[in-house]
């Protein structure tokens, strides 16, 4: 799963060329089961956003969190945490870039989870040698 969260690894239909993230096993456009791994673009446009005051278990230390609906450059839409920008500065249509961040720490196991978030500035690109 780390590829999915670190590299925004989705897939592309070999038959009709449609992109998907999270990856699918059956193409949603043409029904083909032949798909190949494909990294999604790391830039997108902000379509909607919210300031979340109630935290999920494991995220209490990050309250309040900003989440947005982002349309990536290839048309795929995802929901992602928005970082590095105050809530009041958000506007529909803003261009955002994927950044690699800690998502949460599991207090009990000590495990740290990382993944993509989106912010106003271009972030360090994660390559497979980093992980």
């Amino acid at each position, binding site marked *: *799963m780390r590829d*999915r*969260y670190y590299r925004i690894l989705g897939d592309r239909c070999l038959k009709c060329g449609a992109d998907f993230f*999270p990856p699918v096993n059956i193409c*949603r456009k043409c029904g083909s089961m032949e798909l190949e791994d494909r990294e999604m673009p790391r830039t997108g446009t902000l*379509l*909607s*956003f*919210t*300031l*979340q*005051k*109630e*935290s*999920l*278990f*494991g*995220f*209490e230390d*990050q309250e309040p*969190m900003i*989440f*947005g*609906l982002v349309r990536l450059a290839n048309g795929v*839409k*995802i*929901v*992602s*945490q928005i970082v590095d920008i105050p*809530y009041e500065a958000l506007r*529909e249509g803003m261009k955002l870039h994927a950044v690699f961040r800690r*998502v*949460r720490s599991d207090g009990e196991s000590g495990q740290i*989870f990382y*993944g993509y*978030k989106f912010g106003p500035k271009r972030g360090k690109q994660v390559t497979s040698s980093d992980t």
Partner: protein
Amino acid sequence: MTKVGDHWNRSITELCFDAASKVLSSAPTNPEALIVANAYSELTSSQAALGPQVSDALELSSCDALKVESAGASGGAALHVAYNLIRSGQVRSALVVGVEKMRDMDPARLVMAQGLSENSEASQFFGVSFASMNALLARLYMKHFGVDRERLSAFPALAHRNSASADHAQFKRKFSAEEVSRSEIVSDPLRVLDCAPVGDGAACLLLTNGEDINSQAKKPIVEILASETCSGRVNFFDRDDPFHFQSTDLATRRALKKSGLPLESIDFFEVHDAYSISTALIMEAIGLSRRGHACLDAASGKFDISGKHPTSTFGGMKARGYPVGAAGVYQVCEAFLQLTRNAGANQVPRAVRGLTHSMSGIDATAFVHILSSAGGAG
């Protein structure tokens, strides 16, 4: 139905007893099936397999017993299963018990539980709450259709007007649209009063095939004319039209077709109004409002008990309350009260046919039932 609220001292099976005892003691014979509707027992009570747990507690040990889970639509789903078990001839009678016990959950775990209907790898992994998913849709809807904050508050205001006189409701306080708009932010633009509260509760129904039940039993007084369902894309943003609740739309069309009734002949609607924004989209998908107009219609009184299409007549999820897995069963109990002229101050005049709508996620799946008082099948 138990009152929706805090039931600190009652366990899940005890809540089931509280809801079922009167029904069981007045039933001529024990039901042959027990269908338990519940969403979160594994999390709230470390309890799975509620079918035998509840049948054991209700002294129904030899019946067919199973739990049906479909997050917020568990109640509608359980009813759908019971209905079909009877229609197929497998059993002659079924007890449907919806139950949820959520009030003693730690708040952060509760928020996590509420989001279980969303895609966990894409959403929950990052800490998105269910309210936030609804909020993202709300912002899009408000911008696209020019619906302002005050207008969005019309549905919660309606719900609280109705619950004020409902005995089993969790909240009986009325709130004006303005008070709804000014309540604390949960996930902007959604406020506390845009979102259903957290409550414990249990509701129970006895279904029979109306034929081979004991001849001393009362005649069936409410009939289920249709039990239909439809599912679709889980994420609203994966849909061609994020403002079209297709599962709700198709389940409604199927139910109306099955019952042979036009929408106009339905006298009241109990819908899954857990969030103001989803209520608007539900009403538009059912066909009671034009696209983008549901909030305006609510503000104008169209959905009041005295209005053209009475909706959430006891306050719905928003004000009567939302014990998640039990909600769909509460709706049918309320429809039963309406159709048997036992709704008291909440009575819809001349109510002969009702529609209940039980939904999970943001229209991931919907179960629609059409009920009529006996002889009201049209």
